[in-house]
């Protein structure tokens, strides 16, 4: 077991090196972040040079890569362009937790993330808990009542949801639970404020940050994100459950005269939950990155929205931090999933 873990960790190292190279290369896709200043008559050529110098964009590319990884605080940088170093470097590099300065937010990337990560986690963790609860119960029910009307409806609905892009689900929900609801209440002479909000995390007009208000703002984004994941995950749980239910040891348990509830939960689900552990471990990293599309639709001030804002005009430090953070957590949790799986199921040992 220890040997396997060590082996698996060692395998992750070259992978992480490739990830950093890929992310660094990608960061050049947006072009020079200050290129737009060329059209601005107020900015001189020297200003642009200084800005590029400040963000280290004039350095040779391999040096930029090294600075990004391990920083430049051991050397002098040439800010006044006289060919000699004059200012001590301040970057510490991502290995020491310094992701650099965000250009569009005008503050350290770490601060941008620190501000937005909690918002994203509120949305994504709620969404994921809802997904797992519903997916597991629907999946189990559909499996033990295979080909019943419940199973057929679930199958049909999940097929449709699974074919819908996430923004379409979101727009439909907004239309029904916000727009139509408001019109309906207005017609009845009720208070349209009872309908669900579609923008942001809190009511901006009241200026307060109440928990109840947050919950109301959470409903639509959470439902639109969960609906599609429930469709996918419940299918998966249904098929693993079916595989287990049709196996010999369940027949044995049944012939021993155990109750159906005992068989379903103690014998079947316990074994079917094994692949579920892997699925959860592999899903976790994607919760951190937020939901780019859903956050855009619902103006949710999270990581995904920051990412979209960093694309145009280009904000390479933020883009790189965002991509490398997601990629590293993916690699890490893949490792966790593999190790957890081989620990839970001793039959599996990868060579």
């Amino acid at each position, binding site marked *: 077991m220890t040997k396997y873990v060590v082996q698996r960790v060692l395998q992750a190292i070259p992978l992480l090196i490739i990830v950093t190279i890929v992310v660094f290369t990608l960061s050049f896709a947006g072009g020079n972040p200050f290129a737009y200043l060329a059209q601005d008559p107020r900015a001189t050529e020297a200003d642009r040079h200084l800005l590029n110098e400040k963000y280290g964009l004039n350095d040779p590319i391999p040096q930029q890569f090294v600075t990004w990884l391990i920083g430049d605080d051991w050397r002098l940088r040439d800010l006044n362009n006289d060919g000699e170093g004059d200012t001590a470097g301040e970057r510490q590099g991502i290995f020491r937790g310094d992701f650099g300065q965000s250009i569009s937010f005008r503050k350290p990337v770490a601060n941008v993330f620190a501000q937005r990560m909690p918002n994203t986690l509120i949305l994504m963790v709620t969404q994921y808990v809802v997904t797992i609860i519903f997916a597991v119960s629907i999946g189990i029910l559909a499996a033990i009542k295979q080909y019943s009307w419940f199973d057929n409806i679930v199958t049909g609905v999940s097929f449709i949801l699974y*074919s819908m892009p996430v923004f379409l689900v979101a*727009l439909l929900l907004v239309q029904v639970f916000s727009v139509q609801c408001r019109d309906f209440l207005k017609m009845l002479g009720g208070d349209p404020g009872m309908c669900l909000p579609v923008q942001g995390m809190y009511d901006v007009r009241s200026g307060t940050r109440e928990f109840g208000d947050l919950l109301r703002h959470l409903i639509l984004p959470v439902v639109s994100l969960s609906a599609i994941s429930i469709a996918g995950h419940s299918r998966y749980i249904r098929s693993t459950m079916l595989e287990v239910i049709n196996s010999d040891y369940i027949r044995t348990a049944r012939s021993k005269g155990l109750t159906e509830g005992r068989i379903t939960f103690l014998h079947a689900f316990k074994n079917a939950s094994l692949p579920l552990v892997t699925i959860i471990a592999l899903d976790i990293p994607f919760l951190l990155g937020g939901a*780019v*599309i859903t956050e855009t639709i619902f103006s949710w001030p999270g990581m995904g929205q920051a990412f979209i804002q960093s694309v145009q005009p280009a904000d390479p430090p933020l883009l790189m931090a*965002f*991509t490398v953070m997601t990629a590293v957590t993916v690699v890490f949790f893949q490792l966790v999933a593999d190790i957890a799986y081989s620990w839970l199921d001793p039959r599996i040992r990868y060579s």
Partner: protein
Amino acid sequence: MANGTVESVSNVIKLEGRHDQAESLLRVTIRRFLRHRMAVAGLIILGFVLLYVTVGALLLTEGYANKTSLTEKNTPPTFAPVTREDGSINLPNYLGTDRLGRDILARTIYGGQISLMIGISAVAISITIGTTVGLISGYFGGLIDSILMRFVEAMLAIPSLVLLIVIQPVLIKNASSTVNLFGRQLSITVVAIVVIIGIFSWLGLSRIVRSMVLSLKEQEFVTAARMVGASNSRIIFTHILPNCIAPIVVTATLGVGNAIVTETALGFLGFGVQEPTATWGNILSGARQFVDEYPWIWMAPGLLITLTVLSINFIGDGLRDALDPRTQR
């Protein structure tokens, strides 16, 4: 040893007679596919979508789809003819108009052609790359395999939408230039989107093909082929590749649906094909700023996207069952 040779040779002889067997396999597949009710329903729905984008184009011109009108911005669907500012009478906007007063019905027709074309061309690219990488990686193994597979894993670690959004400025530099395709003047960004979706969606397939090649290359018919002196490329293309066709066909089918969804997601976020060329994705971008207004802007393209992807998923499912030798029907 001698016995083994005889067996391998008999395998080679069997392979010689493969042609009429392959034909009957195709017939078996079609027969099984047609028994799959959902798959047939998928074919019919897809047929209707195709009729919509082709017959529709015969009735309305592309010029009409791109015609803007200042007085008819964001108007809801109407069934009465519209009198324009210059006194001319126009067709009613059955599905309403977008923020520039363009007719959404006509835009979904021409946009549909482009979206479907993007889906199919992107998959053509991704299948070519994915199959090639999978074959090389699985067949030759060793250092090439390690490098390719580590690269695939690294790319898979980055969410695909993030990857596409980050890379798109490179390919959409000259967004205003146009290209002539199928007799239509299209924005160059159509080609750019095809390329970026194509070159970033082959990763999963390459792993599937690789794992199939790993088990296939150990089988006797490959040993036999090598023994009679077949070259590597002959073994790969005539002996191994035909046995990988089933997962490739299924992945390709489902890939078209995924590529269409990806295009619409990029279009919705404003990173897709540039206007005036319509796609289902960039019609939806009009709904981004005003999520709770003008629902007709996203309803028609949204319904078309869902129907298309749903039917493709049904067809893919049917093909998977039909091509799987383990299901006996």
